[in-house]
């Protein structure tokens, strides 16, 4: 079964540094999501793409976070500068359409020191 690929699996960075995460969704999935999950909590939506367009980034801290999906396929989420409070699991998910079940990658565990 096709999977959503994410890299890196783990990332440790110092505060004020830049960090980037990559996601390759399941082929043909038009909708792509980035979620942040703090330990013990549910995933919080950061940004949602429909093809290459952002359809919801209302919860994305735009002063330090950016996301792109240039060709409507893979996506990159960037944080610059990282802060201690950014330590969390960053999950990417894709779906065939915006009303379809989500398929998640295994996430990137970020630790900011």
């Amino acid at each position, binding site marked *: 079964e096709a999977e959503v690929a994410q890299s890196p699996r783990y990332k440790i960075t110092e505060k004020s540094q830049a960090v980037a995460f990559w996601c390759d969704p399941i082929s043909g999935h038009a909708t792509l999501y980035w979620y942040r999950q703090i330990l013990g909590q*549910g995933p919080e939506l950061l940004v949602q793409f429909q093809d290459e367009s952002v359809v919801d980034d209302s919860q994305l801290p735009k002063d330090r976070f950016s996301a792109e999906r240039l060709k409507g396929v893979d996506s990159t989420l960037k944080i610059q500068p990282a802060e201690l409070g950014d330590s969390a699991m960053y999950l990417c998910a894709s779906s065939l359409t915006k*009303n379809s079940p989500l398929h998640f990658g295994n996430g990137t565990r970020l630790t900011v020191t």
Partner: protein
Amino acid sequence: SQQGEEDPQALSIQEGENATMNCSYKTSINNLQWYRQNSGRGLVHLILIRSNEREKHSGRLRVTLDTSKKSSSLLITASRAADTASYFCATDRGMDMRFGAGTRLTVKP
């Protein structure tokens, strides 16, 4: 912000027992979905129930939806140790998918 709230936050049962988790939400939805997450992994979709459905089954899973009370429940029958995980409800409002805080289920062998 999160849309759903699961109850209880944590549940511990013996293998073979049934587990029931509840989810309440705030706004109208198109559908409600349940996901499972093993520790340190991504979420896995379990079942989807549409707003015009009241009950749905999939294997040992039974989901109910009461749109008048804005609530849903997930029942896992004859639980196994391998069912130990966190379970999340997610509400599809048509423009995005929002998750609750989850129920941590522990099934003791």
